[in-house]
């Protein structure tokens, strides 16, 4: 067995208990892999594994390129490019200043600042999965802030390839970057389709073809001395595709990526020189000071800046705070930047180690803050850090005076709209509660009365005159919100929506008048149709027709 293979084996064996911990405490695996790597690093020479770990970097960036969807990029960016860029600027500059105060060079301080400013897509979007799937504003905002940051990171690494802060080499790097993007567009137009035709449905060839394309882009990047990250990103753009079109390819790349990315994080950990264990006291303290600065910037300053910027942009306090909290960690891209700079000899051991350690620490703490984000928000709101947003609600809402015996509809989606139609048909007063800025125009156009605010907030209910209502119907499937509504103990009847039976029973026990479970309704309908079909009372064709009729009647 080669020495390299032994090193890989040891890395994975040491990582196993940490992976179990990650699973047990529901934490992203990246920080625990880094810690496992730090331990494995005491036994192996990580340098040998670095070569394979580079594929981890490449695949990480490659998959980012692949996932960019040019059709929706515009709407994603429109949400928050201001907040994202503003945040990078503020946190970045603070990072540079603090770095210089602690005595690192300007270039290192710049890298330190950028590393602190970037938040992890891997941690953030993993934690925001539910919010993104439910299409909550918070999920969308978080996703788009991270997208802007990742893009920025790739650009920063490109410039880093110049190795010096001088105009000519930087322009040259940017020129190469442009060439790679052009090559990517060319490959996407002419080569990728060709490859997929030639693969003739073989997943194996498709995967190998795409990996080879990646290797060629990386090879080309290495050849012209541009960071491989740039090559990998361009390769990702070159093959970005609809995951539905090649499910086998998507799954295959996923598992290849998981393997190499795990190896990457562990190897990065193994490169860290552990304070106090492998380092004398004085140096250890210096390193810890840098770690503390980074952690402070990531978990305090960054969320704060993001929140304030979002509030300034007109998002209400809760959404802004929760989005801000979701940025409170250091990105895997920061780790990539650190290692690229380290390999180029631009970064001293102590700064490199500080970035890696701070990333591992904040990725773990971020999981915790996400878990308790509502509580944190309550706390921040209670000490009066975020006030004065009532004005905004007043400004953006339309509620007639003396509203009583009305129906309050929480959520303006498909379900909400049909309830509005019912109220209008019966000429019964109603008010809609919604807080998605993307829906505000629709809201204005179609609703007689609405409160543009967060249903979690007291003022929103005051505004909607909650206790004088006849009925409150919440059509969102957010568990947090449903529980909060129940906790308010409204006098009017309260109708909720639940995604499953267990929840529905819980809501009923806690005082809901009625809970709708769409899946159960569907099951009920399906049982009727399918028993008819299976008993022969209905043919498959008739079933199809029934379905189509239903679809058109919606």
């Amino acid at each position, binding site marked *: 067995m080669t020495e390299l293979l032994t090193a890989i084996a040891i890395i994975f064996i040491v990582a196993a208990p940490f992976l179990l911990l990650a699973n047990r405490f529901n934490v992203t695996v990246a920080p625990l892999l880094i810690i496992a790597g730090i331990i494995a690093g005491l036994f192996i020479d990580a340098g040998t594994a670095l070569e394979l770990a580079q594929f981890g970097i490449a695949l990480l960036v490659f998959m980012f390129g692949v996932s960019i969807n040019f059709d929706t990029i515009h709407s994603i960016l429109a949400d928050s490019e201001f907040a994202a860029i503003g945040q990078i600027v503020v946190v970045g500059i603070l990072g540079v200043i603090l770095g210089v105060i602690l005595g690192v060079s300007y270039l290192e301080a710049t890298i330190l600042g950028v590393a602190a400013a970037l938040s992890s897509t891997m941690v953030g979007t993993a934690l925001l999965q539910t919010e993104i799937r439910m299409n909550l504003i918070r999920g969308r905002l978080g996703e788009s802030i991270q997208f802007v940051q990742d893009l920025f990171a790739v650009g920063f690494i490109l410039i880093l390839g110049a190795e010096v802060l001088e105009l000519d080499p930087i322009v040259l790097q940017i020129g190469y970057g442009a060439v790679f993007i052009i090559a990517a567009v060319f490959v996407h137009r002419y080569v990728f389709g060709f490859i997929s035709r030639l693969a*003739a449905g073989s997943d194996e060839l498709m995967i190998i073809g795409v990996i*080879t394309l990646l290797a060629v882009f990386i090879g080309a990047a290495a050849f012209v001395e541009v960071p491989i990250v740039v090559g990998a990103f361009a390769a990702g753009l070159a093959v970005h595709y609809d995951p539905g079109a090649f499910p086998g390819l998507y799954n295959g790349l996923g598992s290849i990526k998981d393997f190499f990315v795990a190896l990457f994080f562990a190897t990065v950990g193994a490169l860290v020189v552990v304070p106090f264990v492998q380092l004398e006291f004085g140096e250890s303290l210096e390193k810890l000071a840098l770690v503390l600065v980074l952690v402070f910037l990531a978990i305090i300053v960054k969320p704060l800046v993001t929140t304030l910027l979002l509030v300034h942009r007109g998002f209400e306090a809760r959404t802004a705070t929760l989005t801000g909290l979701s940025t409170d960690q250091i990105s895997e891209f920061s780790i990539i930047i650190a290692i690229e700079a380290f390999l180029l000899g631009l970064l001293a051991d102590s700064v490199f180690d500080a970035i890696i350690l701070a990333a591992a620490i904040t990725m773990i703490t971020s999981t915790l803050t996400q878990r308790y984000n509502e509580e944190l928000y309550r706390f921040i709101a209670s000490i009066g850090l975020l006030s004065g947003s009532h004005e905004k609600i007043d400004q953006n809402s339309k509620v007639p005076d003396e509203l009583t015996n009305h129906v309050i509809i929480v959520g303006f989606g498909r379900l909400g709209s049909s309830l509005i139609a019912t109220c209008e048909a019966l000429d019964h007063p109603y008010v809609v509660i919604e807080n998605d800025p993307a829906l505000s125009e629709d809201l204005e156009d179609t609703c007689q009365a609405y409160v543009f605010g967060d249903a979690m907030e007291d003022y929103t209910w005051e505004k909607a005159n909650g206790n004088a209502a006849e009925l409150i119907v919440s059509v969102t499937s957010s568990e947090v919100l449903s529980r909060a509504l129940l906790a308010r103990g409204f006098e009017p009847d309260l109708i909720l929506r639940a995604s499953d039976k267990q929840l529905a029973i819980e809501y009923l026990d806690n005082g809901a008048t009625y809970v709708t479970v769409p899946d159960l309704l569907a099951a009920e309908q399906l049982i009727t149709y399918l028993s008819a079909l299976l008993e022969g009372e209905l043919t498959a064709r008739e079933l199809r027709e029934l379905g189509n009729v239903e679809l058109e009647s919606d």
Partner: protein
Amino acid sequence: MVTEVSLSVDLAIILLAATVAGFLAKQSGQPTVIAYILAGVVVGPVVFGFVEATDLTETIAELGLAFLLFLLGIKMRIDEVSHILAPIVKVSLPQMAAVAGVGIGVSLLLGFDLSESIIIGLAVMYSSTAVVIKMLTDLGQTTTLHGKIDVGILLAQDIVVVIILAVLAAGRPDDIAEVATTLVVVLILVALVSALALGASRYALPAIFRRIADNQQVFFLIAIAWAFLFVFISDEINLFLAPVGIEAYLSIEMGAFLAGVAIAQLPYSKELQDRVNPLTDLFVMIFFATVALRLDASDLLYYWQEAIIAAIVLMIAKFVIFYTLLNWQRFDGETTFLGSIYMVQVSEFGVVVGVAAVAGDFIAVEILGFLTLLALITMGISVYFFAYSDQLYDRFEPHISRLEADKTFTEDRRTLNDHAVVIGYDDLTRNLLSLLDDHFEQLVVVDRRTDHVELLSDEGYDVVFGDIGSSSIRKDVELKKAAFVLSSSDSPEISRILLRETKEDAVVVLEARSDATASMFYELGADFVIQSVPLASKRLSKYLEDHLTTPDRFLESIGRDTGILLESDPFPHIHDLIEGKLDD
């Protein structure tokens, strides 16, 4: 990035050459394995010399072999192979002796001296694990009877390789007793590692994997760590043996295989296959492409005429020997024929034995070249026997059936046909299970959550753990033969796969999140598309109207709905309860 330029470029060239060759092979209908080997010949020192073997390529090649065996292990359920263990032992030992005999004989006739001929004989008696398993996997035949027999024989050969390597590593053996000691030590070690794997599989792994199976990433990485643990133990076995004063060697392939077997006994192994497969494909490709990287053209081609003659003789001899032995064990004609014709090549282990023999000063490097060329030629030809096995079998079928034993060895297999497949266990599908169970003889449920799988199998349902997005799960539930498919997956990609892969007259019921998706599914052939939100929307509007106009009716309706909701049995026969009472 200057530091790692040269390293990555070597690998990129190998990847590119092998990929181009693979695509060409696919286009011209040739097996990809031969294309990968030839790509290595072309870019390696034999022809152009663009690249040579490096630590990185060697490591990936080793990973390839380890992953291939791990993947194979994951597919081996002990209850499905235990009945063929005895015939495998009875076939493999005489087979190796006979092939080694033929190998020694032909080498002597070709003019090699006795000790060289013995090494050659010992090197050629194995068939290629890499080629056979890769081709069986590509053809989807690993779990056929002939597939399992071949795999069993390959593993028996692997144990023998390990013993021979151990002997060669120790230098020229002084006497037969030393060889016997090595044999006993290796067999004991294999038994110990097997016991460790199987013990863990029974007592430790179920608890661990049940906890992590819901987390795809952790599940995959832990499984790989498990494989590396066994690879490491096998490779570093001397670390554990040194205190007792014994020296021995185990192959990492054996370790990887046993790690896989331990996981195969758990209900979560299916999905893992699909996750491990792509990595294996990638690494194995590099394995094949690097086979020819280690030697110069002059060494490789020094004995080229001898190699061609030996290749022909050995392939025929191997086929005849396997055929006779398998037929003797009363396997049916097809199993015997395919089981034999797949095993005619010389293994990469032959090359490994050759390398050890050169290191131990038993043979000259030209003879290693001869063994490598022999392996390349026989591997290259044998992949065509896989590719055209059906045609070959049809051609020889009349002769084969004459030779077939009267009473052949048979095995039972579960077959699914015209069955119902339910994907996802949730509020929607749960309530339909009993209805479907009443109407279909066979019903399979696929779900990705361990607690659901346990609940369902306790209830007596046939349930498969895994993600329907993975092709081996779809194969496992025989999606193509299903008469009815109900999926509550809200991923349009999955639904499209289901529509594409089910047969024409199958009833396919899907779920959609929007009207647009629903009408797309109808266009693609769905029989019914469930949309729960519009249903809820109609129902809520109705209740809202009642609440505002006729409160009594509202109370009555919600009373009925809540009654259904509170039904506590997880498998309620609610279709009896509510049939015909729907208001729309």
